[in-house]
């Protein structure tokens, strides 16, 4: 079942962060929200992850209204916030143990989650050390592992490879792609890195100033343009002109 996002609106005081965003994300595919800083990507992802309530709009997955039935929706979603940290005095293993305890329905599932988590994090013996000794990249890998090991139907990853070196970034991108295909899960990622989005996503939505400018496959969106940067610049300029005419 796809994820349906319909007409999301969210304001912070007088600032409108998201203006009527709608898109559909398919099972087994990675959907990317592409846009500059402050475009409304994180706000959209927070709403989809039930962390934030929108002013209006709806999000449906498996016929469940995620916004209205947030508590039951959380059973099958996992979210990694942008720049998410860790509990300094817990080891990486203890972080994974905590997540496995929260998500697992029985002992076997708990063990399987934990084994997967250790494999995905790929931290070696460092997994048994306190996370205060971890680099930014190691923390990020732990967070991704924590989210993917529980095999969520919907994984929401805000800037998944931010702060990670090239080698591990490639690994994580492959992992996310494989995870979506193998588990028929929906993965929503956000990024301002055009290269990453092109490598990772099956479908993308270009977002600017809270408005979703275009949605489609990479091929559809690129059209005759040489790369996504060019498309983005054209769309953003067009949006500005539309606004000034209005």
């Amino acid at each position: 079942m796809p994820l349906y996002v319909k007409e999301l609106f969210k304001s912070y005081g007088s600032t409108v962060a998201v203006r009527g965003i709608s898109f559909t994300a398919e099972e087994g595919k990675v959907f990317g929200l592409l846009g500059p800083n402050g475009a409304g990507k994180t706000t959209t992802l927070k709403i989809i992850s039930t962390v934030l309530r929108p002013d209006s709009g709806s999000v449906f997955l498996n016929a469940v209204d995620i916004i209205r039935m947030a508590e039951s929706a959380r059973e099958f979603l996992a979210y990694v916030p942008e720049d998410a940290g860790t509990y300094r005095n817990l080891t990486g293993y203890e972080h994974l143990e905590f997540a496995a305890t929260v998500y697992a329905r029985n002992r076997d599932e708990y063990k399987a989650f934990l084994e997967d988590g250790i494999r995905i994090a790929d931290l070696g013996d460092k997994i048994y050390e306190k996370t205060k000794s971890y680099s930014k990249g190691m923390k990020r890998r732990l967070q991704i592992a924590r989210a993917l090991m529980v095999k969520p139907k919907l994984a929401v990853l805000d800037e998944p490879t931010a702060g990670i070196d090239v080698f591990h970034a490639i690994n994580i991108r492959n992992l996310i792609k494989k995870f979506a295909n193998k588990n028929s899960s929906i993965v929503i990622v956000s990024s301002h890195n055009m290269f990453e989005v092109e490598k990772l996503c099956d479908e993308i939505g270009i977002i600017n100033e809270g408005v979703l400018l275009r949605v489609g496959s990479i091929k559809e969106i690129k059209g005759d343009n040489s790369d996504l940067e060019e498309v983005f610049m054209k769309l953003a300029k067009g949006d500005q002109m539309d606004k000034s005419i209005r």
Partner: protein
Amino acid sequence: MKRKITALIKKDLLDVLRDPKVYIGFLLPLAIFAAFGFISAVTAPPSSVPLNVYVSKNWSLFNSYLYSQGVTITSQPYNSDAIIKFYNNSNFITFNVTFNMKDINQIYYAKAEALNYILNGFQAYYRNYLLEKIGVANFKVISNPVNYSFITNINNVTYSLNPLYIFEMTQIEEFVAPTILFALCIGMSEMAATLITVEQEEKTFEMLLSMPLKRYDILTSKIISSFVISILSSMFYLVGLIIFSNEYLTLLGGVKTGPVFSVNDLILLIFIVLLIISTIFSSSLGILIGLLSKDLRIANVYLGIITVPILIPTLFFIAGGSLSYVSGPFKVLLLLLPPTYAIEITRAFITRYLTGYWILGIVIGLAETFFILYIASLIINGVNLKSKISKEVQNYQGR
């Protein structure tokens, strides 16, 4: 070089001073000084107090001296402020003085001071009398003609001490106990606020909120964690206070009065309950602050604000105030602050007398703690407090 330093200073000052919350920190000392000034005025001993004394034998010289000092001599030993018995051996006089008090407050302090002043004055008065009567030949008699021995009776608990020593004991205890309790309460608020603020800063809180965990479970876990830390800290405080009390208060003035309290003591038990309520109240405030703050800087500003209400009972008791001596809105304010009761009961370690405020302390402390946690639960559930309050007001007006 100078230009670069100026630019650095300008950058720092603008960053700090453009945050309006910083000015709350500037205003805090003003609020504390104003509170301390008011409390000092409220707790100041009165300039004159009535002193009723029962004298066991009629001795016109002594009685007329007492009259000249404005003392009322009563015929009933009961209900008197002091019972004075005296024995004479030739020209030497020995006074046995029993000072009665029902509470430790400014009135009794003023009476104890007045009695000491009057009795010391009598020493000089009697010395002059002897000089006139027998001349300077017997220097030994004239230099020290009067001996005093004191017993202080506080609600049938007697100490072989001058009442002024008792006040000295309580003053030291009332400095140590509230000051450390103040630090404990602020520490608990800070720790609870940090438990949540660090999660906000590290964005682990967003991760928790997206997990299959009920909002109430998250809040409950924070509350229980803070309370466990509060109870642990309270136990360390308690052990420290017992060591202090039994080491210091029992040996003051070289007079051993026995242990101040023992483990099977009702006063100690109530004190532990009030101490725990004070610390969990402080933790609840910390949790609320944590939920209202986006980072530690803002949390610290809010923590600064809550130091004032916790500081009020601390200053009040350090200044020697008594709940039975204050009235009006200030008393209401004191009674609304849970740390008041934990501090107030420490006096009972010496007086061995429970004033009854502790019952109110348990009720008010728990009620306020639950109210704060209710507000925290609304915030964690994403309820907009402003709109909820206006809705409640509309409902109320509609009724």
